[in-house]
């Protein structure tokens, strides 16, 4: 069975089409692994064997009839619990939505189901995607499968841990400031955040709407390309969904890299990056030179401002988005209150966790009368400076590379006492969200305590196919992405 849990999506599809295994058998294999390993990892919040097997039977019938079979038919996957999934509890990692059973499907869920994929369950995450370690989840932290005393990263930590432990072949994630790429790096997998607007946000519980973007998390760039093919595309239900011609994101995977120009931002290679991460990233760059690429130093002079700008803009948008949780139409309502105002403030005080409340409060403050210009407007102006840096940089290179995260996975509690320290773990990922650029993290070695290190590739706007090509060629030449934690075998 180890061949199946380590198989690529293409290999799984081929095995299903050739009837070497049925969709039900494949789903059962992963459900059994979830049952065995999830108690130690806490990657899943919700599973439902009956629902999963019913979907697998339907997929199996389609495969049998040979009608409407796609590249993903019958392959299982799991969704971050931020995606509304009809008939499944959708908690967003929060007490306030603990009992929320979604009455509709998110666009991403709908598209993957239409492609014939089978849902294994809903994955744990930082509450409302606010966190970089998964320690803010109401359902308890997710453990890193490489070392259960370490965090998996966040906010898509359940997605990352589940793929790393081979509890699912692939997962969905969302990335507002690094929430796909940072956990992918810390758990040793491949995770892609598309250009803003490529994937519809419909049914994805909103955190910071101008930054939120959904993307795939899987074992390889090739798998991510196939998943992106299924979830990308215009959707009228998201007002920022882009009307663009459909693309095959796997079209350039096999292109050789000779002549590729890789930009290395000097700001990403200075102080702040741990030595073990630096060594692995440098080794990856050496491999790229062997593949025919050249590297050029570039400058992103305003990137140092991206974390503070983000911590004005994201909380501001969050404070507005999360005002919908009022204990009236859905979600938690406090048991005791004297009047309507107290019902609101108690329901929210009891329903939200500490980090979510902090961000709502900061967001409310920076938007409040007298402070709006100084904080919010100023942050938006700096956002433009950060984006302009990338426009200039892409005149000199095809892709940008650097570390995904300044360190390998850290121990539980190491950064949770100081919010600002935690925020800085997204120092290399946040600027791409502010600019709306696509980014991917892929495994490029192991650092201290044998924990995975991620290489980040940042593409130009709508440069997903190029970015995937660059990642795939590296994965053909190396085997970091094929490694899995010994204890999960």
């Amino acid at each position: 069975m180890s061949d199946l849990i380590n198989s690529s999506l293409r290999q799984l599809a081929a095995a299903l089409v050739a009837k070497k295994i049925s969709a039900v058998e494949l789903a059962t294999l992963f459900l059994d692994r979830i049952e065995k390993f999830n108690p130690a990892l806490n990657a899943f919040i919700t599973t439902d064997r009956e629902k999963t097997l019913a979907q697998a039977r339907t997929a199996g019938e389609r495969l049998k009839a040979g009608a409407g079979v796609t590249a993903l038919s019958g392959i299982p996957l799991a969704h971050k619990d931020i995606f509304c999934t009809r008939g499944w509890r959708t908690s967003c990692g929060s007490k306030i939505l603990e009992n929320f059973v979604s009455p509709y499907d998110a666009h991403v869920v709908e598209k993957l189901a239409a492609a014939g994929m089978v849902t294994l369950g809903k994955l744990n995450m930082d509450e409302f995607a606010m966190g970089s370690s998964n320690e803010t989840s109401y359902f308890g932290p997710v453990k890193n499968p490489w070392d259960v005393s370490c965090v998996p990263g966040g906010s898509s930590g359940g997605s990352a841990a589940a793929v790393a432990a081979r509890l699912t072949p692939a997962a969905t994630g969302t990335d507002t400031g690094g929430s796909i790429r940072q956990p992918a790096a810390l758990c040793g997998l491949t995770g892609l955040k598309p250009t803003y607007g490529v994937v519809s946000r419909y049914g994805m519980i909103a955190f910071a709407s101008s930054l939120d973007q959904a993307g795939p998390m899987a074992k390889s760039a090739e798998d991510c390309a196939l998943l992106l093919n299924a979830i990308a595309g215009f959707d009228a239900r998201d007002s920022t969904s882009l009307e663009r011609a459909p693309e095959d994101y796997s079209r350039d995977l096999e292109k050789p890299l000779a002549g590729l120009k890789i930009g290395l931002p000097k700001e990403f290679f200075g102080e702040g990056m741990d030595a073990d991460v630096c060594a692995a990233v440098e080794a990856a760059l050496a491999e790229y030179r062997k593949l025919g690429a050249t590297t050029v130093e570039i400058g992103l002079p305003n990137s140092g401002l991206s974390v503070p700008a983000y911590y004005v803009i994201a909380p501001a948008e969050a404070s507005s988005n999360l005002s919908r949780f009022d204990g009236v139409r859905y979600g938690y309502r406090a048991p005791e209150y004297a009047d309507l105002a107290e019902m609101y403030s108690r329901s929210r005080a009891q329903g939200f966790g500490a980090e979510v409340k902090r961000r709502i409060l900061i967001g409310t403050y920076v938007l409040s009368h007298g402070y709006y210009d100084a904080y919010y407007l100023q942050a938006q102006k700096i956002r433009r400076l950060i984006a302009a840096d990338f426009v200039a940089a892409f005149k000199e290179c095809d892709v940008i590379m650097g570390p995904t995260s300044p360190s390998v996975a850290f121990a539980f509690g190491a950064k949770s006492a100081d919010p600002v320290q935690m925020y800085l773990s997204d120092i290399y990922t946040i600027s791409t969200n502010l600019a709306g650029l696509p980014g991917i993290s892929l495994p490029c070695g192991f650092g201290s305590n044998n924990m995975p290190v991620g290489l980040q590739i940042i593409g130009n706007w709508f440069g997903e196919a190029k970015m995937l090509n660059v990642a795939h060629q590296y994965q053909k030449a190396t085997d970091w992405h094929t490694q899995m934690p010994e204890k999960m075998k």
Partner: protein
Amino acid sequence: MSLNLEDVARIALLSRIELSAAERETTRDQLNGILGFIEQLQAIDTTGIEPMAHAVDVVQRLRPDVVTETDRRADFQVLAPETEDGLYLVPKVLE
């Protein structure tokens, strides 16, 4: 500038989040820590820079004014803490 306990109480009221007296103190310290961190933005000269609200320039689409949703009120109201006769119930607002 740094926030005092009164500021924290005002922000909590605007946010509709109840904070106990003890929580107000820790919240004040944590918010001041975060504000101290974002303070560095003030030093940047942004004269003449257009604020960037969104990563991509898109205009609000219009759609034909026709009904596209089906009535699923019952499905939605199942999720509410308290309903009666198809209405959402809240504490009395007007005497």
